């Protein structure tokens, strides 16, 4: 048991080290980014300031020059453009790691300019969409994969193989564009952008609180509104993910079914159901659970492009907004949260795997992923 503890400790440490290295890389990149991109932003803002000042007749040219200088310096400090690069990177690392992210210049999502709150807002939306979609894909994929594994080369299995190949080559965002084309443009069944969902919810709760609709219809309308805005993105994600996932399940299960212990279980007189769920599935659970967990967590980064296509206010869109608006700390926070969650999941999975597959306990400090 002591070696088990040691194994886990080693894995945790190495994963955290990876996290710190990633943060260092991100910080270095962003500092470089600031130098190049933000410098340009500062120049633009100073020019704007200068133009505004020019309209003011009350100041002398010297006074104006002084104000412009002060403004420029203030901006440079605010955007972190002063100081030597190493200390900049160091400070940025500390800020990112402790989630001391400050505020962005504008409010891009939610109600406050605080970067942390915007990230939380976006994370919530991504979870609602992608988590749900991945969950649905996993459940349906599991059922499909199991069915196909029991009747290999049957109709379902062949269809499954085809969809798996399709899944791996379809660009999700393109499928999204097609969905919009068919269901939002041609048929007007669903909206073309999902951002307004919060506005709609707000109006709904106003109606509720002013007493014009009943609680029951409020709840129903609430769900209906979410579904209305979520239907297309949700369907897109599920459609694209399901094939690949079901195929993985099918392959793992077929692999396990060919093992000798399955015949042993059958010979012992266990029912087919018991053999499938009690033995095969249980033996297949380590790889399946870990793959499922990893895809759940990967989905937390949102899919940047798919979210922009649908206008879904999640982590992916937030990242893109941060990029197009030149907000380095927002970029940093977004990426950091995604990576952090990913690494935490890996650590948890490494521990979980030990319980799922007893063989790993004694096989050394290698991490499974």
């Amino acid at each position, binding site marked *: 048991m002591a070696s088990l503890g040691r194994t886990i400790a080693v894995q945790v440490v*190495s*994963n955290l*080290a*990876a*996290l710190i*290295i*990633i943060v260092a*890389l*991100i910080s270095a*990149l*962003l500092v*470089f*980014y600031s130098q*190049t*991109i933000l410098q340009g932003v500062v120049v633009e803002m100073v020019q704007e300031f200068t133009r505004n000042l020019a309209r003011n007749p009350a100041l002398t040219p010297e006074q104006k020059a002084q104000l412009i200088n002060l403004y420029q310096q203030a901006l440079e400090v605010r955007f972190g453009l002063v100081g030597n690069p190493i200390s900049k990177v160091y400070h940025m690392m500390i800020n990112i790691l402790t989630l001391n992210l400050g505020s962005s210049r504008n409010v891009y999502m939610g109600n406050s300019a605080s970067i942390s709150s915007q990230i939380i807002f976006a994370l919530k939306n991504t979870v609602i969409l992608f988590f749900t979609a991945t969950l649905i894909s996993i459940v349906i994929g599991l059922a499909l994969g199991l069915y196909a594994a029991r009747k290999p080369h049957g109709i379902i299995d062949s269809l499954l*193989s085809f969809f798996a*190949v*399709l899944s*791996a*080559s*379809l*660009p999700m*965002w*393109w*499928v999204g*564009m*097609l969905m*919009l*084309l068919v269901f*939002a*443009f*041609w048929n007007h069944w669903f909206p*073309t952008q999902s951002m307004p969902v919060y506005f709609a919810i707000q109006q709904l709760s106003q109606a509720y609180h002013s007493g014009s609709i009943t609680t029951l219809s409020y709840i129903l309308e609430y769900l209906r509104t979410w579904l209305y805005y979520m239907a297309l993105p949700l369907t897109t994600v599920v459609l694209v993910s399901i094939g690949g996932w079901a195929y993985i399940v099918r392959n793992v299960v077929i692999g396990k079914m*060919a093992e000798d212990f399955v015949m042993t279980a059958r010979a012992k007189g266990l029912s087919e159901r018991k053999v499938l769920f009690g033995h095969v599935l249980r033996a297949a659970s380590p790889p399946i659970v870990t793959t499922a967990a990893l895809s759940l967590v990967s989905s937390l*980064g949102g899919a*940047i*492009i798919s979210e*922009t*296509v649908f206008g879904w206010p999640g982590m992916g869109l937030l*990242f*893109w907004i941060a*990029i197009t608006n030149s907000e380095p700390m927002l*970029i940093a926070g*977004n*990426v950091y949260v*995604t*990576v952090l969650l*990913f*690494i935490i999941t*890996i650590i948890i999975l490494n521990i979980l795997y030990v319980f799922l597959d007893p063989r790993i306990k004694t096989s050394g400090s290698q*991490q499974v*992923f």
Partner: protein
Amino acid sequence: MSKRRGSSGFRRFFSDLRRTKVGIVGLSLLILFLGLAIFFPLIGNMNDIKNWNNLQYWRDNPKAAPPCWAVGNTFKSISVTGGENTSNLIERNGELDGFKYISYSFLYNVETQPPIDVIARFNISYSKPTYVYITMERPDGKYISLTGNPESGERTSVLDLFGVDPNSYSGDIRIQLASYLNNMITIRNYIVPWLQSNNVTLQPQDVFRLTNVAFSTLHQELTPNIINAKNVTYLSGKYNVTFVFYSSDKNLSVALEKAIALGGCYGIVGTDNMGRDLWMGLMYGIRWALIIGFSVSIMSVLIGGIYGVVGGYFGGKTDEIMLRTAQVFYSIPVLPILILLAVIFRPSIWNVISMLIIFGWPSTALVTRSMALQIKEETYVEAAKAIGSSSSRILFRYILPQVLPYLFASIALSVPGAILTEASLSFLGLGDPSIVTWGRILNEAEVAGATINGYWWWVLPPGLMITIVGMTFILIGQALDLILNPKLRR
């Protein structure tokens, strides 16, 4: 046991590959795409690609037009060139009242829909004041003067229509009839009087409405409420648009380069909002997709494969460093960092490829590492060491040949990912603007609101190509897997 794989391995794979159904489909598709990519100059028009960013080149194409096979009721574009012997072009010249005139009559037939524009390009040369007179004759016999009619004493100078020096000029001129006609001045001067003389009642707001539809209105049946009618009926039959250039310069020369009656459809998959032929873009994109796919996957799999094998075999510090590096890369979310790098460095396609390789090698390395770890323990490796084989010999003779099949399958399976990632970057507008890729086409589509405007021919084909090319490689990779797995099982 595993010694059967080795030098004879290569030949076996290709013959095995040919035997599986999946492999055959994949291989034939691959050959098709390779052929299309390599022989593009023969099938397609390289000029179209070279001029992809040159909007002038595409001036004469209908904008955002669907393919002709998909649209039922539309005008099919026709064009004539000067000197061409066709019933759609009548060239005349002569002298009248001391003026030399050269005229080109362009005839086109309208069935259910009129053209969306008539474009004419001339090469002209004169050294004295020169004028132009344009008329349209409709199937119902009515004539419209679209410029000043010299018979009534009004002369329209080439300056007004073409913006060139009216006294002396030598060069190209071009006119788009619809934009000329949809102009308030033209409408007031020529179209309104003509309509009124044909018993059409015009309210002031109707005149404004004409600025959008003057050209198509001229092709409609003449009824008193032609402007406000709910159902638009077009007058079918032969239309004759005549361009007459006249000048006191006896050396006036006008050569028609091209006259086009532009229809609402174009080509095999239509055009984008700049009028670019999407079929060309689609076919040429195969080249880049294959280049990107192959270079990224081959390089990252080779680098990763060798790195993994070396690390796995030698163990120790080299292995540790490699493992940790791979781990770090593995945990980095690829697309966000790529986007960040793309924004900072504004990369060319080769930078993108390099970055994809840098992010791609770890996954192969991890697998080949564990393979090397396993093979290292086999007795024949022990035996080889005992007889004094050097490490490099063991690596090349025993380990690498067994890892090679997996590497091949891996190369095939990595191609779609590379193509997709590059397409994603281009779709966001972060790709190389000097090359034509499917992602870029889709980016332009999204920016132009193709989804909202229903330009399905712009949205569907590029994504379809990405998918099919991706599927090709997955099928090949799957076939390779099928061949490898039974052996691995034993």
